[in-house]
Structures are given as C-alpha cells and as structure tokens.
C-alpha cells in the first residue's frame, strides 16, 4: 500500500485531532500521511494506527517522519515472508488437497476460510497494535509470536505444497495413458532443470507459453 492509500485509511483516525477537519493539525497530519510509504497490505494497520496515534499525542513531525521511514521496510518484509511465502501457499495447498479429495466446493471454501482467518485476523491485530503502540510499535513487530511465524512460514508452506503435489497431480492425470504420463514427467523435469540451473529468470509462465507454442506446432506437423 503506497502513500495515497495510507492517507485514505488514516483520514478517519485524524478527524478527532484538536481543531477538527478544519484545523491546522488535521491538515498537516493529512499531508504527512500522504507522503511516500510502502508496506504489506495485511500489516499496514500497524503503520496507520501508530502514525495516527503519534499525531494525536503531538509527537514532533521529524520523529513521525522517522517512524514512518523506519516502518516501511520491516512491514513489507515481515508481511511478505509471513503471508506471501507462508500462510497463502499453505492455505492454497490445503485447498488443492480438499478440492481433489473431497469436492471442488469444499476445496474452494476451505481455502477461503483458512486464508481469510489469517487475512482478517492480521488486519484487526495490526490496526489495534499500531494504535496501542504509537511510537513503540516496533515492539509488536519484534514479538515472539511474529518471530515464530517468520521461522515456520517457509518450511510450513513448502511442506504443504509438497503434500498437495502428488494428490493434485494424480487427480489431473487420471485417464492419461503411460505415454502421456511420461510426457508430463519429461516436461516437468525440463522445467525444473531450466528454473533451477539453466535459466532461473525464465519463470513458469514463459516456460509454459513456450511449451504451448511447441505443442501447437507439433500438433500441426
């Protein structure tokens, strides 16, 4: 979330500043809240709450600016590691397993429920912790629970994806003969070799599109 988004989210919290929405403090706080920012959307509440609290406490603008700069990097990296490489792929993998073993709707609903418990929970916690923390908000980011989450996020996601792969693969490959299965295995192996050593920046999409072009060509020939 960038500066304009932070200003949009912070504005309701700034209306109660002395002087109200016509006052100088409100206007100056709004200007500060619209300046550059970048952070993870699920944890942005920590910054929104903390910065609004400092405005209410009358903290000098330079200190507020320093807090703002200090929060941007950690909020991004903690959120990215915790959500994008942790809970989201884990929930996705669980959704895949449920979808292929039970039913499509169970998979979809299971994934959405699991992911959104984290999504909504983090957003509510972040805003509340930010408001409570004010200038001391960093203590929440360095808390034991966050450290534990960061430690287990990657391995948990890798384990969940590993668990889902054979089950999803077998469901997708049902009805394929041995020749086709061998073809899938060869393409997958070539893709992994490309991604891990020959051409790491190629990416799955471009590899897939290249394969599609070759398959169409082979089909015509």
């Amino acid at each position, binding site marked *: 979330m960038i500066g*304009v988004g932070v200003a*949009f989210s912070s*504005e309701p919290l700034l209306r109660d500043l002395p002087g109200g929405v016509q006052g100088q403090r409100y*206007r*100056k706080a*709004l*200007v500060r809240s*619209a300046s550059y920012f*970048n952070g993870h959307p*699920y944890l942005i509440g920590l910054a929104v709450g903390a910065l609004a609290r400092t405005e209410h406490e009358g903290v000098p603008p330079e200190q507020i600016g320093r807090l703002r700069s200090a929060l941007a990097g950690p909020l*991004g990296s903690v959120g*990215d590691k915790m959500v*994008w490489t942790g809970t989201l*792929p884990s*929930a*996705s993998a669980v*959704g*895949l397993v449920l*979808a292929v073993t039970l039913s*499509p709707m169970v*998979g*979809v609903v299971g*994934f*959405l429920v699991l*992911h*959104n418990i984290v*999504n909504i929970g983090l957003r509510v916690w972040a805003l509340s912790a930010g408001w409570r923390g004010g200038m001391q908000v960093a203590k929440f980011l360095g808390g034991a629970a966050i450290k534990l989450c960061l430690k287990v996020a*990657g*391995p948990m*996601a*890798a*384990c*969940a*994806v*590993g*668990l889902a*792969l*054979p*089950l*999803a693969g077998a469901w*997708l490959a049902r*009805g*394929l003969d041995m020749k*086709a299965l061998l073809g899938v295995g060869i*393409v*997958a*192996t070539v*893709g*992994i070799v490309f*991604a891990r050593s020959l051409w790491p920046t190629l990416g*799955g*999409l471009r*590899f*897939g*599109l290249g*394969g*599609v072009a070759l398959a*169409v060509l*082979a*089909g015509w020939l």
Partner: protein
Amino acid sequence: MIANAGWLLLWGVVVGLDLICVAQTMVSRPLVAGTVAGAIAGDPVAGMAVGVILELFALEVQPFGATRYPDYGLGAVAAAAAAAGAPAILGTGVGVSLGLIVAFVGGKGLHLRRIRNGLDVDRHLDQLEQGNLRIIYALHLRGLAREVLRSLIVTAFGLLLAEAIRRWAPLTVQGAVYLGIVTLGAAVSAAVTGAIRLAGRKSAQQWFVLGLLGGLVGLMLR
C-alpha cells in the same frame, strides 16, 4: 456461444479487483476464480481442473514489492470458459493454454495500471502537499476505476479468445492432447520450483521432501 458471458465478465471484475485493490480475500486465486467461473459457465469440474493447474503455476509467484507477475485469476476465468463442456484432457489443455496467454496480458495490464496511477499522483503532487482531502479520495477512486477497466478489458479479451477457440479451434485432437501434457508438466515444474523457493535455506528444503513423501503415502492409501 459461451454460457452466461455477462456473469463471467462481472466475475472477472470481482476477481481483478480482489487481486490487489479490494480486500485481497483471494477469490482471485485460480482455484477459486476457475471453479466459480466453471460453475457460471455450466461445468464446475472443468473449471476446477483448469483452476488447479493454474493454481500450481501461481504457487511460483511471490508478489514482493513492485514485482511484476501474471494475473492467473483472470486467466482462470477465461480458461474455465474455454474448457467448459469440452471432453476432459482436450478441454483442459486448450483452456489452460488460453489461461496462460490471458494471465500474461493481465500482468502487462497490471504494470500499465501502476504506471497510470503513478502519473496521476505526480500530476497532483501540489494538491497532495496541501493536504487536499478531495484529491486523496479522487486519486484512490480513480485507481479503483482503472482496475475495474483493466479487469473488464482483460476478461472480455479472454472470453472472446475462448469463444473463437471453441468455434474455430485450429487444432487436431493430437494437438489438444499435446497441450494438456505440456501445460500439466509446466504447472508441476512451476509448483516444485515455487515450493523449493518457499522453503528458502537448503536445510529447510527437507520440509518440501517430507510433504512430498506424505502426499505420496496419502495417494497410495486412497
């Protein structure tokens, strides 16, 4: 003609908005977007099949900071529309191929939208520096409107392509089978690569192997 094309277009807008701009509840993940689009088009199982394959592709994506990434959600909507009603592997391979193209175009659209948003902010820096509340709200809403427009255009492009493929598929049955094999293989490789990256350190990669073994045991027990 694709069934319920209007509803699919609307679903595409919801999926596009959810990706970044509104709530991020992850209805934009291919598993969800594809299954629901399949249900709208009258074939939830075909929608789920393309959704599962594109979800495997999406597991490779790590959307850190200003990373550019494909829009697999809108890809899944188009893929489900193309695959609905077609026989298993034939429809799935063609649908996912189309989904990859739409995901690529959608990703380019995301980048273009970010540039437009940035230019819009640049044009109004003076007013922002004066704490103009109206301009903050206007910039925010214009950003949302651009996302609605991007989602509409990309979904419409995907649905038109799906309709064209359904009517005049320039493919032999053998070609469609090849597409199924290639897209499934590429999806598995993307998911494996993504999982290894998720684990990070070499010592943590044992967790991926452990999960893989658990999945194989689960497969044998079924």
